[in-house]
């Protein structure tokens, strides 16, 4: 029997429609119930569907709604499918997404536009589910643009401040540059395959594109263009730090469950195309390694707690790209899952802090909060331990450790990638604990005026549990033979191929573990022992602003575009014609006069003309 899996994305879409059309007539409780309920039902239905996967990870469900377009034999349908890879994404999107919705019920309670908020959030989840369930790249593109739209709407949610709208527009346009690359990639696939069905393309990839050809590389790089846009990787990472303009739950949703992970999903989903091009794979790995380091260094110089987290997202997604690039597919997805838990946790906890301090986001004005907000502190700490990848007691350790290992051990890996990833791990734990010490320790600088209630803290606790214990489903194989996660994914993603001669894994793990502990130790020295103060210098400024990519792009692209556009705002071609017209008019003044003056005559002659026409027609 075919399962009606379209219900999964349909529920959030219905939630959106109800809230958008009737939201103004609903009480706040009704709004929250609709918004949360739609996601919760979707999650429960996903759990129900999961029983089939427990017995058989290679299970695959499909459902075709209707033909979207039909041009001869090119027939992209609105068809959805679920395999183990998609299933994991669905659980994270609806599960973590649902917790974020729940939390928002309290967080947004005092804000204007309660219904609008939940409507957009539901729409976001709906499009994200469409994206991961698409069995056809055109449907994927529909979800892809849809999440772009929702991030635009939510980043600019507090629409009265023009800065927020600017950030929203920047996010949309920057990601759209990537989307256009993706679209061109789709056009190329249509030309080569005559279809956009993902399975057909994957099955015939080798025969149509050929291994290691320029064509295969072009396809993979175009898809990668889309992926780096959505996932905020080099060189299109600039939109994400500004995306902090949205409410904190939105950041949690964008960074953990939706949007930025779309790029990771796309590369994993089309792995059959990437495998064909070693050059493209290498590009993915290098982009990942560079991004993780660049973003981690930027995170070290931020003063806004949400911007620290934003750069950490860019950096952590960099780890996922690194894993994808070295062919460690399931390691990338595993890190996606663990990252979704701890990043949602960190953003929601940071949101609680910000709310408690009356919308203060500057860490240097916080301090000493661990006593006042114990629940928030402990959950935030648990999330941070994962981010810093503290050995054994955090999920982040297991997921990140395997990526760092494969950066060297995979046949595509090398010592350079490993070094970058390892240095990144050190900086990560340094900036993470810099954030912890500055925010929660030291002297209290801003008074706590609101203690978050249960609606906010319960999701935090749930996420904290998931973060800590989620890691145990996949352990490094030199420690114990527990690989539930990669076994589950083995039907969707190929296994990583390992070099034959390698240094002992244990020693390398030890190096990484020591470095991440050293990062914490250094942070303790720098930011706990002495009262932290925020200093500025040209170098700090450079990193604070994310290596000045914004300025670079502004000079290279934005200004020239605006300049050209403004210079020709009056349409030069039209003006030339106008000038010629003016001269002509001067010459033929009589003609112009007769046309302007004798409307009645024209009318009469027209009527006569039509009468003649009618006579002819009847005759």
């Amino acid at each position: 029997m075919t399962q009606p899996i379209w219900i999964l994305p349909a529920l959030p879409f219905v939630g959106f429609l109800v809230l958008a059309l009737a939201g103004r007539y609903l009480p706040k409780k009704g709004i929250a119930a609709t918004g949360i309920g739609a996601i919760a039902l979707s999650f429960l239905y996903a759990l129900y569907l999961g029983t089939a996967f427990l017995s058989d990870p290679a299970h695959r469900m499909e459902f075709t709604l209707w033909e979207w377009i039909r041009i001869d034999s090119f027939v992209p349908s609105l068809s959805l499918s679920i395999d183990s890879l998609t299933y994991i994404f669905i659980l994270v999107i609806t599960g973590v997404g649902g917790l974020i919705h729940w939390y928002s019920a309290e967080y947004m309670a005092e804000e204007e536009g309660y219904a609008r908020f939940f409507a957009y959030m539901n729409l976001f989840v709906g499009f994200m589910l469409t994206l991961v369930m698409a069995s056809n790249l055109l449907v994927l593109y529909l979800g892809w643009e849809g999440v772009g739209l929702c991030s635009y709407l939510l980043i600019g949610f507090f629409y009265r401040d023009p800065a927020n709208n600017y950030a929203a527009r920047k996010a949309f346009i920057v990601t759209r540059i990537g989307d256009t690359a993706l679209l061109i990639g789709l056009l190329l696939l249509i030309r080569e395959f005559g279809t956009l069905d993902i399975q057909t393309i994957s099955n015939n990839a080798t025969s149509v594109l050929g291994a290691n050809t320029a064509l295969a590389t072009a396809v993979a790089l175009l898809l990668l263009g889309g992926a780096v846009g959505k996932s905020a990787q080099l060189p299109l990472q600039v939109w994400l730090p500004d995306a902090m303009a949205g409410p904190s739950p939105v950041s949690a949703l964008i960074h953990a469950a939706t949007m930025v992970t779309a790029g990771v999903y796309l590369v994993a989903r089309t792995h059959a195309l990437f495998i064909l091009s070693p050059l493209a794979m290498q590009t993915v790995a290098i982009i990942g390694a560079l991004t993780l380091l660049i973003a981690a260094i930027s995170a070290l110089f931020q003063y806004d707690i949400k911007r620290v987290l934003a750069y950490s997202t860019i950096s952590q997604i960099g780890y996922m790209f690194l894993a994808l690039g070295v062919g460690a597919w399931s390691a990338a997805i595993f890190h996606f899952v663990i990252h979704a838990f701890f990043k949602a946790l960190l953003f929601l906890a940071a949101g609680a802090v910000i709310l408690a301090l009356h919308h203060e986001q500057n860490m240097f004005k916080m301090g000493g909060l661990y006593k006042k907000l114990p629940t928030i502190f402990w959950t935030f700490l648990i999330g941070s331990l994962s981010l810093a990848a503290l050995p054994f007691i955090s999920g982040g350790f297991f997921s990140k450790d395997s990526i760092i290992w494969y950066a060297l051990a995979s046949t595509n890996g090398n010592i350079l990638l490993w070094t970058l990833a390892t240095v990144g791990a050190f900086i990560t734990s340094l900036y993470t604990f810099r954030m912890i010490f500055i925010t929660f320790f030291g002297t209290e600088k801003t008074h706590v005026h609101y203690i978050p209630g249960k609606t906010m803290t319960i999701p935090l606790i749930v996420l904290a549990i998931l973060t800590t214990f989620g890691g145990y489903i996949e352990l490094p194989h030199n420690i114990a033979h527990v690989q539930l996660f990669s076994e589950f994914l083995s039907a969707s993603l190929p296994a990583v191929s390992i070099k034959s001669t390698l240094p002992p894994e244990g020693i390398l793990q030890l190096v990484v573990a020591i470095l991440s502990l050293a990062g914490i130790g250094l942070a303790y020295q720098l930011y706990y022992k002495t009262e932290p103060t925020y200093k500025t210098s040209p170098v700090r400024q450079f990193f604070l602003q994310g290596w000045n990519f914004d300025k670079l792009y502004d000079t290279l692209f934005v200004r020239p575009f605006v300049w050209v556009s403004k210079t020709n705002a009056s349409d030069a071609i039209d003006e030339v014609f106008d000038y010629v017209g003016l001269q002509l008019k001067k010459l033929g003044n009589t003609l112009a006069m007769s046309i302007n003056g004798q409307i009645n005559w024209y009318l009469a002659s027209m009527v006569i003309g039509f009468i003649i026409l009618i006579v002819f027609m009847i005759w």
Partner: protein
Amino acid sequence: MILSYIILILIAGAVLAALTSRWQNRLSFYISILSQLGAFGLALGLLFSASHITFSQSIYDLNISWIPVIGANLHLSADGLSLLLIVFTLFLGLIGSWLSKNLPQPGFFHFQFLILLAGINGIFMAADLLLFFFFWEMMLVPMYFLMARYRDTSQSENTPFKFLFYTQVSGLIMLLGILTLFFIHGRQTSIYTFELSELINTTLPLPISLLIMLSFVLAFLVKLPVIPFQGWMPAAFSASPLAVILTGILVKTGAYGILRLAIPLFPEASVLFAPTAMALGVVTILYAGFIAYSSNDIRRIAAYSSISHTGFIIIGLYAFNLMSWQGVIYQMIASAISVGGLAILAESLYTRTQTYDITQMGGLWSKASVFSGFGLFISLALLGLPALANFVAEFLILAGTFQQSITVAVLASLGIVVAAAYSLRIVQKVYVGEYKGPEQISDFTLREKLIMGILAIVLVVLGMYSRPITQTTEKMLKQTLILDTEQPTYQLPDNAASVKLFSNPQID
């Protein structure tokens, strides 16, 4: 006879509306609506009844001798494409009349408006070149009068003249082309006729064929309009609120003319012209998109957005394949609805704020959320968000064009980024930010909600389900594609292998 009834009902409605307005203004409005509904119903019925059979054959309807001396016939015929465009024209016409309910001098207005509709529908039915030209002129004159009478008095009074000048000069050149073709064909076969199906068989030396084709295409490019003939359009958009709706309908005749006349009559010349046309298309997309970004008058943004959409139409037409042609037809409809929607918003804004300048607005969302919601929706349609009709149009055009020229498709796709920039700028300036308008501002009235709601539904339905359009026009387009049996080949600069013209994309 049904086809001629459509035109006759409109003309009869025009005369009646003009007459009744002498004693009762309301009555002329209702007569106008009634005659349009009648024509709309007929066309819709024809479309539905015909779609049960097939569109491989045209519905030949009326064919009687018109001016026997020169072999001109009153020959009306329609196939799927014609009917689709007729239905759609009448649909937009109804929306336009509904919007214009309170204009002064309704008798004059409805007379001109119905004659205009009759002319446009005539173009879609004409199977005789002289008749085509007759309808072509028939639609321009009332358009001029409407623009002249209902223009925005703050604007230069030259604008209606500008429109007339552009279209008349190019129309005159087309007439010369038609006559040349007529005489050449007559001399060759000693049958002097304007019948399209006969003239298609004329054998022309390539240079002559190129010249005649250019005389046709010039008129169509001006009408669309394509850079550098775009000047009349922003002028027309700022001349009259109504002009925008009208223009949405009007410009589609240009694309139709290329598809129905220029390409079938002069296939080889069209192939030669294709690289130029594609270059013009790309320039149009970007040039107009850039200006749209820097314009502050919302009507001017609508105009340049429409011109930018036209660029897609041109490259799609000259990519000569089924996918891009389906996209062109999609674009004709989607662009008219979305740009029309923006124009309606512009008018709604003007009645509330007394300005068209978007820099004078802001934060409308806090005062009129339904209004702003629709405004956001139209902007999203303009920037080609998937799930809305404009996306299907642009996607099909780009996918079809990509088969012929990667360079053109890639350059054109940059237009999508530019479209995002100018569409979101409207949102940024008008709906969000700090509120700047007058103290008291009302949200959408019921009429505005209904009109925008209908447009939105059409955009979503066509965006998610393409069958109503693709199935209706498929047969006609395929016939045109295989029209030329010699299969001339043409080469665009970046294509290594020359592509066979009129062959469908290799898709299996």
